[in-house]
């Protein structure tokens, strides 16, 4: 009898631990990359210190070509000819990313820094009655605009969420003949400029005397803008509800209506909430429609149909270009509050949609 055993080479230590040799680059690569970044930067710094060429010119006319050449040389010396095109893409891609990051960073930092100057309890809780653009920051606030935003957005939510969900239910559950058309119209509606939504409400409700410029009128305009967002997000989440759940319930003798109301919508409730929040986030900062349909008011207004009303965006709008520094600081303060609202909505939607859909 012969026993055959495969010849196994001795096991080395590095054969037992996972390695990622492709992340190891030869020293020449790091050397070339470092020089490719460092030399252009050095020239940039030198030119900036010794000449008075305007910085944008310096960046675009001097630094960018230098950086492209530097990267190309580095790439050629390590990867050969086929690395050159890639090096340019990398330079442009990293450049685009840094540029966008600077823009976003500048916005967020300015909003926070300038906004904090205005922030104090009275700023949040008081309204702006008796406040003129030149009144010092110690007096008056945006309480009325916060109330206005909540009132308008609240009414808009009550109007648009049921309609948006119904639209989604039509597309995913009822599946009528008109599904492609409904989807097309929802898509088209999402392209309606916000100012046009305001003009529409103005024509239909205000110029005809049905409503006056008020929270309700503004809310209708907001609802027009919210509806497509809610409908499309809700459609996506309803599609995620497993088909078995529907057929199972139907097999038990449920009616279509019961299946939707008692099975499908509850199964997708997180998604439905997400749809609502995304809709709110879409409109909460909209200004143009309110300028046409809700006007402004320094008083705190709680009656949705009686008076014009201010909201955060319109408050900011009114104070942006004022020649008084305190008014501008108020605008930044309101912008910070609005941005906090948007961020909270944004974070909640991220959190909700990151959760796995329930099976």
């Amino acid at each position, binding site marked *: 009898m012969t026993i055959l055993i495969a010849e196994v080479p001795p096991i080395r230590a590095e054969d037992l631990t996972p390695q990622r040799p492709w992340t190891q680059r030869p020293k020449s690569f790091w050397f070339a990359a470092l020089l490719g970044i460092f030399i252009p930067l050095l020239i940039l710094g030198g030119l900036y210190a010794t000449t008075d060429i305007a910085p*944008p010119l310096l960046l675009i006319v001097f630094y960018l070509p230098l950086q492209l050449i530097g990267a190309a040389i580095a790439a050629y010396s390590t990867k050969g000819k086929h690395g050159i095109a890639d090096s340019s893409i*990398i330079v442009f891609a990293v450049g685009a990313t840094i540029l966008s990051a600077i823009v*976003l960073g500048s916005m967020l930092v*300015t909003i926070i820094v300038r906004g904090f100057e205005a922030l104090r309890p009275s700023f949040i809780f008081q309204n702006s009655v008796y406040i003129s653009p030149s009144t010092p920051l110690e007096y008056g606030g945006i309480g009325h605009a916060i109330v206005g935003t909540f009132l308008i957005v609240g009414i808009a939510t009550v109007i648009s969420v049921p309609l948006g969900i119904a639209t989604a239910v039509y597309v995913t559950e*009822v599946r009528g003949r*008109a599904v492609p058309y409904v989807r097309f119209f*929802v898509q088209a509606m999402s*392209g309606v400029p916000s100012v046009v939504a305001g003009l529409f409400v103005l024509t239909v409700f205000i110029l005809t005397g049905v409503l006056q410029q008020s929270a309700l009128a503004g809310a209708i305009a907001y609802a027009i803008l919210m509806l497509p967002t809610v409908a499309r997000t809700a459609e996506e989440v309803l599609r995620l509800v497993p088909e078995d759940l529907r057929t199972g319930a139907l097999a038990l003798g449920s009616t279509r209506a019961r299946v939707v109301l008692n099975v499908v919508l509850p199964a997708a409730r997180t998604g439905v909430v997400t749809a609502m929040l995304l809709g709110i986030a879409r409109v909460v900062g909209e200004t143009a429609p309110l300028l046409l349909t809700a006007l402004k008011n320094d008083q705190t207004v709680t009656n949705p149909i009686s008076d014009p009303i201010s909201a955060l965006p319109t408050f*900011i709008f009114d104070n942006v270009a004022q020649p008084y520094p305190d008014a501008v600081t108020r605008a930044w303060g309101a912008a910070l509050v609005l941005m906090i609202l948007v961020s909270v909505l944004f974070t909640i939607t991220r959190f909700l949609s990151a959760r796995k859909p329930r099976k």
Partner: protein
Amino acid sequence: MATLTWKVLPVAPDTPIRDLSKSKKANRGDRVFNTTITGAAFTSLAVLAGITLFLGAKAVPVVQDQGIGFLTTTIWDTTGVPPEYGIAGMLYGSVLIAFIALFIAVPVSMFLAVFMVFMAPVRVSKLLTNLVDLMAAIPSVIIGLWAFYILVPPAEGWQDLLNQYLGWLPLFQNDSGNFTGTPFVAGVVLAIMMIPIVTSVTAEVLKRTPPELINAAESLGCSMWTMLRYVALPFGRGGIIGGIMLGLGRALGETIAVFFVLKIVYDINFFNIIESGGGSVATLIVAKFGETSGDFEVDVLLAAGFFLFLMTLVVNAIANLIVRRTERLKG
């Protein structure tokens, strides 16, 4: 031979008989439900039709009164007898600004999307996706505020430089030496608003490049550039163009962010993008609404809004057609 017989059992007299005709009743609830849902689903159609009809109804008398000149002239004479209005400068201005924005936003968005999808490590990519979405969520009035105080001052310097070095191009001519309220600045602001929209659509499209095609390209020794050029971009072309068109539609209708940085001049500014002149329809409506001198002028603004609506509708319809066609081609 045994025969098999069936015994027929009589129904017990107290067995309740199922009346199947009653089962229709349960369906009535369904029918009400279906009708309600179907009705609600047509809200979007109703709103679109309403906008077309009501704004159109306001636009017709304006165009009748002003003639075709409403769309082809640039006069804005509210006190004349009779008053004269023309929005050609505004319509052209909207398009001009939107294209300046495209010119800046598209390359930045493409490269940003490529960085997110093909270069950045997974964590960085996720972070960037969130930041891009956050940028898209910043209200336009805040962007306008930021632009007015932070962007405009340096932007005047940039335009001065453009004029100094490239002033021989008609595009960068400026005889006044004044660089405020120009289409260029408005275009930069719109570009900032478009970048997140175009980037997220492009990134989404690039992410959907089939892995088997990327594998094939890698196994043939592709570089980043050749993979993009021959595989990812041809595959995503339709979706990317659709995304750009969606951004364009948004840019045409954007009002508030542009409002603070664009000066309205009743004139067609064909291409002097760093000299103030022209305007945009959406901004005109907001700027003039507060100071209208009578019902007719409100109607004029409504008519302008009607044409803005038509313009964005067409752009969006084309965008959707492109996106849909490419989706169908891919099955």
